[in-house]
């Protein structure tokens, strides 16, 4: 970040600039992980409802076979990451901060890694946009930047809202991570081809690839790959965390600000990660579903940090062994150090959204004790969303969640800049995660209560209706009985009497 840029105002006024720790892992060549013996593939690796298994225990599958189908509008299928036998379908520890169980399909690899029959498309740009969406959805491609939103759903949204600009996110602002950097250096042509397919799918006229200025080799490689296409521009953005967050990248590249209650597509842009674009390329050109990804292995507890191409479902422990363990990791993180998940243990599998596995040594994992808030305002300056973290946290601490919501808590992107800069080491972002979860639980309970009330009212109405029907039936029977009696008294022939008596005797039983 030069002084000139600061003077010109190109330097963003938000965010933080942590020590990036990306090297030497980023410069180590991409390696392939030897096939693990057992792969555990979780059924929910995406935003939305979990996929539904379509295989049985004991069944043999080939690499790329569908093993779980999408369940609902926002969902994604899951495919077998290697060939082998389904050895279990059951609960495993989820790669989730709660450490709660989650359903997963366990595959015992046969070692042959045989692909299923793939259906490549020679020229995806000649396909109808709907067909690209369909194939992307069938390949289980989700946002690989970490958000894991099903990519095809976003394509359809972009097409519907007539998005003109595709922004390709090569920011990778999280310290330690270099998976996107590596894919741009080694597979720039795949990324550019993928982004052109995405542009075609959403009907965008131009694509802006935003890459942080701390990745010069990636910028060079991407510029070379995109040189032939005039509508694809590679733009250098300042290295600043959280540049890889969609709202910040859109603002830096286009100057447009996404309103608080709107999606990016509503201001005419759509953001896709570089790895997602490469996955779209593989899904269309090679017919390969998303079964592997590049994972950064980094942290002080590893001897050979770097990037590896690993099948989805690989246990974290296999990756750590591959990278060489120098000492027992003090903390394991899935994703980046700012927004990643602390793993409960190393037997958790990697998922589609896992951009990195960090094994921190004791020095890196040190968490200083929190002190009192000195109201210095560092957090307000760092907040990329222009919020007041100290005010929100003090309200949440006093259990005034509505007060915090009134200070636009819902706009918080959970980037952790406030916690990073806090001189008192107050875990501000944890307060916001807690409050957001608690508020959504309340909202769910409110909806549930409304449903209960409706059910109770419907029952009351049913009981009333039944009572009324009973009363009407009783009155009718009484009238009939009276009529029969009157008729008998008047000496009507017995035949008629029998006809009238029948319903009476029926109801009496």
């Amino acid at each position, binding site marked *: 970040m030069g002084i000139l840029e600061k003077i010109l105002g190109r330097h963003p006024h938000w965010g933080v600039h942590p020590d990036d720790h990306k090297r030497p892992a980023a410069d180590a060549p991409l390696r392939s992980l030897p096939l693990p013996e057992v792969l555990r593939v979780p059924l929910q690796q995406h935003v939305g409802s979990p996929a539904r298994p379509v295989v049985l225990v004991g069944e043999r599958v080939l690499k790329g076979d569908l093993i779980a189908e999408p369940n609902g509008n926002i969902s994604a299928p899951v495919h077998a990451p290697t060939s082998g036998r389904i050895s279990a379908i059951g609960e495993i520890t*989820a790669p989730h901060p709660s450490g709660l169980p989650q359903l997963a399909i366990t595959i015992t690899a046969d070692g042959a890694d045989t692909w299923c029959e793939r259906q490549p498309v020679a020229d995806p740009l000649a396909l109808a946009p709907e067909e690209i969406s369909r194939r992307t959805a069938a390949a289980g491609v989700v946002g690989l930047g970490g958000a894991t939103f099903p990519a095809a759903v976003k394509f359809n949204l972009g097409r519907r809202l007539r998005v003109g600009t595709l922004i390709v996110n090569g920011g990778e602002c999280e310290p330690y991570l270099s998976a996107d950097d590596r894919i741009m250096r080694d597979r720039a042509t795949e990324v550019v081809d993928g982004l052109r397919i995405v542009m075609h799918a959403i009907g965008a006229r131009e694509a802006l690839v935003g890459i942080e200025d701390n990745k010069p080799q990636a910028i060079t490689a991407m510029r070379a790959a995109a040189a032939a296409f005039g509508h694809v521009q590679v733009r250098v953005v300042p290295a600043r965390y959280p540049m890889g967050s969609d709202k910040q990248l859109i603002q830096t590249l286009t100057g447009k600000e996404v309103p608080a209650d709107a999606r990016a597509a509503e201001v005419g842009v759509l953001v896709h990660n570089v790895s997602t674009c490469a996955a779209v390329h593989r899904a269309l050109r090679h017919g390969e579903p998303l079964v592997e990804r590049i994972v950064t292995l980094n942290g002080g507890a590893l001897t050979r940090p770097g990037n590896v191409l690993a099948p989805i479902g690989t246990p974290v422990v296999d990756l750590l062994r591959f990278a060489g363990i120098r000492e027992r990791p003090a903390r394991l993180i899935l994703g980046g150090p700012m927004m990643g998940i602390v793993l409960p243990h190393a037997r958790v599998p990697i998922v589609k959204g896992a951009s990195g596995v960090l094994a921190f040594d004791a020095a890196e994992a040190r968490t200083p004790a*929190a002190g009192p*808030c000195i109201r210095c305002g560092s957090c307000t300056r760092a907040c990329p969303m222009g919020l007041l973290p100290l005010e929100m946290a003090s309200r949440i601490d006093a259990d005034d969640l509505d007060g915090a919501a009134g200070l636009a808590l819902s706009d918080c992107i959970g980037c952790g800049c406030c916690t990073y800069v806090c001189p008192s080491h107050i875990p501000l972002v944890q307060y916001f995660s807690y409050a957001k979860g608690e508020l959504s639980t309340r909202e*769910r309970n409110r909806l549930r209560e409304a449903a209960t009330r409706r059910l109770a009212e419907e029952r*009351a109405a049913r009981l009333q209706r039944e009572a009324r029907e009973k009363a009407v039936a009783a009155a009718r029977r009484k009238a009939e009985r009276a009529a029969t009696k009157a008729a008998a008294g008047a000496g009507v022939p017995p035949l008629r009497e029998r006809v009238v008596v029948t319903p009476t005797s029926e109801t009496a039983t």
Partner: protein
Amino acid sequence: MWLAVLSLTVLGTLLGLALGVAAKYFHVDGNSLVAEIEALMPGSNCGQCGFAGCPRAAAAIAEGSAPVTLCPPGGRALAQALAAKLGIRIDLDAVVDHGPQIANVAEDICIGCCRCSKVCPTDAILGAAKQIHNVIREACTGCGNCIDRCPTEALLLQTLPVTVQHWVWPKPATTPAAFAA
């Protein structure tokens, strides 16, 4: 003297009129507090509190004859909301809250007697005479009305497990002085 009598009469008449007009225009039908409390209650009229339905319980809470902690399905959240509404302080830790629960039928011992389905306040139990009954999970509020009705003890309340989808980050345990005023 007449002046004093006259002025007081006029004053009395005017004030009386003003009161009469105010009584007509600012008239409140019933106690609105009861309606507000009722809006907070679960509304399933399960009767676990001992009152015949949520409106009666709301009336009792409003007049102060029942504690705000009376509603088992509402749990701690409801007790807190009611205490805030009435401006009273309560000991939340004393409120028993099992978390969300639902009833479950053990299908191998259900004899299809239909007793449970008759008392369900939300019609969440499905069944017919001499058929195995079942609970519609989405509609069950876990009120427990059906549990004692079952002659074969086939019904049990189960606490719903916390899932990855519904898990909420715990509140950070910082030093009490972190946000002291």
